């Protein structure tokens, strides 16, 4: 362990000030914090809670049901990021639909789904477009490409989301945020500085052990001074402006709408739908898809996990009815999900 890590871990272990709660918003942060056993380093007066920053986890169940409907009833070819395949929806998953005969292909980027559609002109291809500001620009570029190629067999089922609404909603659950480094690389930091003026503290953090420890330490120091703070601690990647080009693309090609987050509910203006100019590629408009509003009651507490009210250990299903092989909630599916990270790396007690 290098000196910087040694010093930071000592400070965090010996902290004996007032109790503080810090929420990591980003799924990659959750995963890295668990993988590195960071919670185990911390004084008991420092609590890290996991927020709603895993795009798979916050994707509404109805979205999965729609995708399964498109694959099984409309015989579409579904193109999806891999980890969405295991998410349960309506008692099924895309993985199971595939085993039953539906055509479901894994893609590694949105543009690959356009390439697939071009190479398979006799298949109706639907790309499952989930993700936050980091993934959205790539997804939109794929739609642009499809338009350029005049692809009539390509469309996109969208559950794209933006983060700022979630910060505001979560602000009461935490004393400070570790803001998601990759999302901020796109959005920039102006909005976070605004939040700071309104009493919301946080730092933009990177992902290495050094970056994570120094970000947590900065929050702990800041909170003990009882003054609202904001600091970009990931300046090698995140600028105040963010990515102007990506933001322009989002503004040009999408319209915001009130989007439903799994386990959390509707957050105003937090969803992104394709604008009129690109609505030809909107699967919701191309196909007649039922609403899928019926909710099944389960004891799954993903919503409370995603909002930092409980840790996965407090959920009655965790490690019992809900495991990575048979996930009940989406948080158990993605490697970015809090439940999955707790399941995989659960610190030695």
């Amino acid at each position: 362990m290098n000196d910087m890590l040694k010093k930071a871990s000592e400070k965090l272990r010996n902290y004996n000030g007032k109790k503080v709660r810090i929420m990591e918003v980003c799924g990659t942060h959750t995963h890295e914090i668990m993988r590195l056993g960071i919670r185990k380093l911390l004084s008991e007066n420092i609590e890290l809670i996991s927020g709603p920053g895993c795009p798979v986890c916050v994707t509404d169940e109805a979205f999965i049901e729609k995708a399964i409907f498109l694959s099984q009833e409309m015989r579409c070819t579904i193109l999806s990021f891999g980890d969405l395949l295991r998410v349960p929806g309506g008692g099924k998953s895309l993985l199971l639909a595939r085993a039953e005969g539906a055509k479901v292909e894994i893609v590694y980027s949105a543009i690959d789904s356009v390439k697939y559609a071009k190479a398979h002109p006799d298949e109706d291809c639907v790309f499952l477009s989930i993700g936050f500001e980091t993934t959205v620009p790539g997804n939109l570029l794929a739609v642009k490409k499809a338009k350029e190629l005049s692809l009539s067999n390509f469309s996109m089922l969208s559950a794209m989301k933006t983060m700022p609404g979630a910060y505001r909603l979560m602000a009461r659950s935490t004393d400070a945020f570790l803001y998601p480094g990759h999302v901020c690389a796109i959005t920039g930091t102006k909005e976070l500085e605004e939040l700071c003026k309104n009493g919301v503290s946080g730092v933009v953090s990177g992902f290495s052990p050094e970056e994570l420890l120094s970000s947590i330490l900065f929050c702990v120091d800041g909170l003990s001074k009882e003054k609202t703070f904001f600091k970009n601690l990931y300046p090698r990647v995140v600028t105040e402006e963010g990515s102007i080009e990506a933001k322009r693309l989002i503004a040009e090609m999408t319209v915001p709408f009130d989007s439903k987050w799994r386990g959390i509910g509707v957050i105003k203006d937090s969803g992104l739908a394709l604008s009129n100019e690109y609505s030809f590629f909107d699967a919701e408009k191309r196909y007649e898809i039922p609403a899928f509003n019926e909710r099944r009651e389960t004891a799954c507490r993903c919503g409370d996990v995603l909002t930092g009210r409980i840790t996965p250990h407090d959920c009655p299903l965790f490690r019992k009815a809900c495991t990575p092989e048979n996930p009940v909630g989406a948080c158990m599916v993605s490697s970015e999900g809090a439940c999955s990270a707790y399941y995989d790396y659960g610190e030695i007690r």
Partner: protein
Amino acid sequence: MNNEKIVTLSHGSGGKKTSSLIDEIFKKHFENPLFTADDGAVIPLPSGKKLVMSTDGFIVSPSFFPGGDIGKLSICGTVNDIACMGATPLYLTASFIIEEGFLISDLERIVSSMEETAKYCNINIIAGDTKVTEKGKSDGIFITTTGFGVIDKETNPSGSRASEGDSVIITGDIGRHGAAILVSRNDFSLSSEIKSDCAPLCHSIRALLSAVPDTHVIRDCTRGGTGTVLFEIARQSDVGIRIERDKLPVSSEVNGICSLLGFDPLYLACEGRAVVIVKKEDEERALSALRSVNGSEGACVIGRVVNENKGIVTALTTLGTEVFIPEPGNELLPRIC
């Protein structure tokens, strides 16, 4: 969701679901005194010697990949299983299922690579079978090999012999086969020099057993990766295994692919690597024997067998904390972002 009884890809991933398929279907109908849940079994002969028999099917796509092909793989896989049981591999049979339309020149490339690998291992391929399916009824070529070997020395490596204080050794850097296959499937626009680690382990293991006859465990890491093997050993021996993350040999290319796709190198397939467990005092002898043979020059200690957290594998992190490593289970699904 559980009431849908169909075979899914997870059943073939070598993890928990594979085990449940073996227990609930195969074992139920095949149960007999010699039946094992492994791919190899030991058969005592009247002479007092022991015969080892092992069988394995190969369905890798693409058939050719950097560092090998399905032919080389089909020999290495079975030879390695036999060698890891402490036996000298002697004979092999091979069965081919070929899709109509497969290029004869490709078939010959595959068979000639089987010939070359068999020679290197000093084994003979003594019988075989060929079936051709209609186009679309299989995918290119599937090969099943069955191997025979004899245990001629007083050695007894077994997954149940790991004991407290033992050293856990890996014979080289991990995850290269899995990564090479991912890259050569061309699903991502990645180009990489990465080559599969596909290789026979028989010479390495022979050297090891000569130097350390009392080697406790030898297990080759295959499709489930190193993590799966470590968990199997921890469970069979009812011990804990504590590895040190920073000591795991992982090439920078494999690390890069893993961080891009959210994979853990512990769960990428290897086809020429084994986990070896020996007493602490045998550690140096085991390492120098392994390092003297081509293919296991990179052997190193990655952890220790402990008396806590039985049946579980833990890792010491860069920060000095101890965490579980993820349990084996599902086929790898690359994450978004």
